[in-house]
């Protein structure tokens, strides 16, 4: 029976952080590693992520990026309205699409929109944005507890895990129900720190989420992004820990904490 699992959010082609995260999770003795989707975007060399996933038997939930790339769609389905955000999103999407092999695209197309597990009697639901919508943003400051309780009810789950926003948080709900946004390992959390992070869920016997910061060679990632001619704005985020693009989706509280 599984007691302890690692939950990795958006990878965004950051294969260097993925390597470190896998090592860290193994060292902590997890029973299994799951990834909640968005394998590409933002970073360099998207195809380097896939062998790491298969070698380590990591089950993956489909993210909106994986769905878009896998189905040859025109954009990432992030729903930006700001022309500047759309400009950068398109650069990132076109680069990722052009540099992902046909085989990997087909693999992403077939990924499941959710994974369900049972841990110590708890029904665990892993999804990308939310259980009802792959590209729904669940931010700490705009997600009421009663809304999460409804998701648990509607989707027959005691524990829901998601990613998609890029910033981790967690909450315990009434009735021993739980929600965690596991963050992402693709880029830092808009807090001026260069590390990324993932979550460990341990059920023994009660569920406990722990956020684990992960250090990786971010200078090398930045260098490779520059070599691939990805935007300097993205490189700046990797080097400084502050988001520089796609800021419109941030609610007031999360936006105020950032620099831009």
């Amino acid at each position, binding site marked *: 029976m599984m007691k302890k699992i690692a939950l990795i959010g958006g990878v965004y082609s950051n294969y260097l952080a993925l390597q470190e995260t896998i090592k860290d999770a193994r060292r902590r003795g997890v029973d299994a590693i799951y990834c909640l989707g968005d394998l590409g975007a933002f970073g360099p060399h998207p195809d380097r992520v896939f062998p790491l996933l298969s070698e380590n038997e990591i089950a993956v939930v489909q993210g909106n990026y994986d769905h878009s790339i896998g189905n040859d769609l025109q954009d990432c389905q992030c729903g930006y309205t700001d*022309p*500047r955000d759309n400009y950068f999103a398109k650069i990132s999407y076109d680069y990722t699409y052009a540099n992902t092999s046909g085989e990997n695209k087909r693999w992403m197309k077939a990924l499941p929109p959710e994974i369900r597990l049972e841990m110590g009697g708890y029904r665990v639901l892993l999804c990308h944005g939310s259980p009802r919508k792959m590209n729904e943003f669940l931010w700490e400051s*705009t997600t009421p507890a*009663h809304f999460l309780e409804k998701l648990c009810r509607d989707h027959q789950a005691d524990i829901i895990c998601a990613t998609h926003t890029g910033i981790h948080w967690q909450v315990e709900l009434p009735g021993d129900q739980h929600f965690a946004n596991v963050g992402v390992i693709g880029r830092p959390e808009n807090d001026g720190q260069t590390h990324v992070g993932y979550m460990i869920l341990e059920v023994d016997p009660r569920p406990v989420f722990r956020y684990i910061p992960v250090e990786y060679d971010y200078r090398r990632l930045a260098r490779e992004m520059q070599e691939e001619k990805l935007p300097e704005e993205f490189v700046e985020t990797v080097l400084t820990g502050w988001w520089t693009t796609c*800021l419109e989706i941030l609610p*007031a*509280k999360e*936006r105020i904490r950032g620099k831009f």
Partner: protein
Amino acid sequence: MEASPALSYTSPPEVHPELHLDALDNLWFQVSGTLCNIACDHCFISCSPRNHSFELMTLAQIEPHLEASAALGVKEYYFTGGEPFMNKEMLDILERTLRYGPATVLTNGMLITPAKAARLQHLADNTRYSLELRVSLDGYTEAMNDAIRGKGVFKKAMAGVERLYAHGFLPIITVTKTWEDAEDEAVLQGFADLLKSHGYARPRIKILPSLKLGKEIARTQGYDRYEYVTAEMLEEYDCSQLICANSRVVTNRGVYVCPILIESPSARLGDTLEDAKRSYALQEQACYTCYLYGAICSNFSSGKRDA
């Protein structure tokens, strides 16, 4: 614009497509009714200091709806009018709402006194939820803005923006589009420059399409006869973009389908949120604007910054 199926209609369609409520994610309150301290030329519900067609709502009237909303899993709360800060109970209403979830206020910023700004900051600092302020402005110069919103409005609104910024807010400046597409970039830049010159270093700007309703009909023109949403137009369309797929608005006269249509009798769905869960036939011409632009009432805004 490219030809759309709607162009084949020369008169209103006889049958309007029904749209069901996917989930009540966004709950609006017409908290100051149709009462406003100003009377803008483009107001789609003709709010003014004397328009009592909808009245102010009290905390006591709002509270039961907040309670009911929690059981329905509402995600966000929005307050509009008129001018919400005409309502003397507005800050208490926000305090109560922020116990339930995130709140957004659509304001003209003119009534945000130093004392109100300080209390708003206190409210924002003492909740885990976001408190957003959306401040309407219609020009990046006094002349441009006041031509639409009235004499003296620009200075008072900018004072409100400065106060909010000084109290830790990043207000979303909401602008109704009254210019041609080709001018988009120049206008956005004009607003960004204005806000920066007032010390607002990382402005958030949201552009709204104009709604050809209320006083806006006199300012420009109303809808053309073919401008309706038809069943055909909804094929392959992401209906979650339409406000009525995920929102309702509570007024002192009952619950309506969306904040834009409160003056249309067809838009009143009942007395309670439970009544208002029923589907709505997209029979109003403003539905056509919502269809074209999508998600026009959400908080998404421009994050434009200098390189």
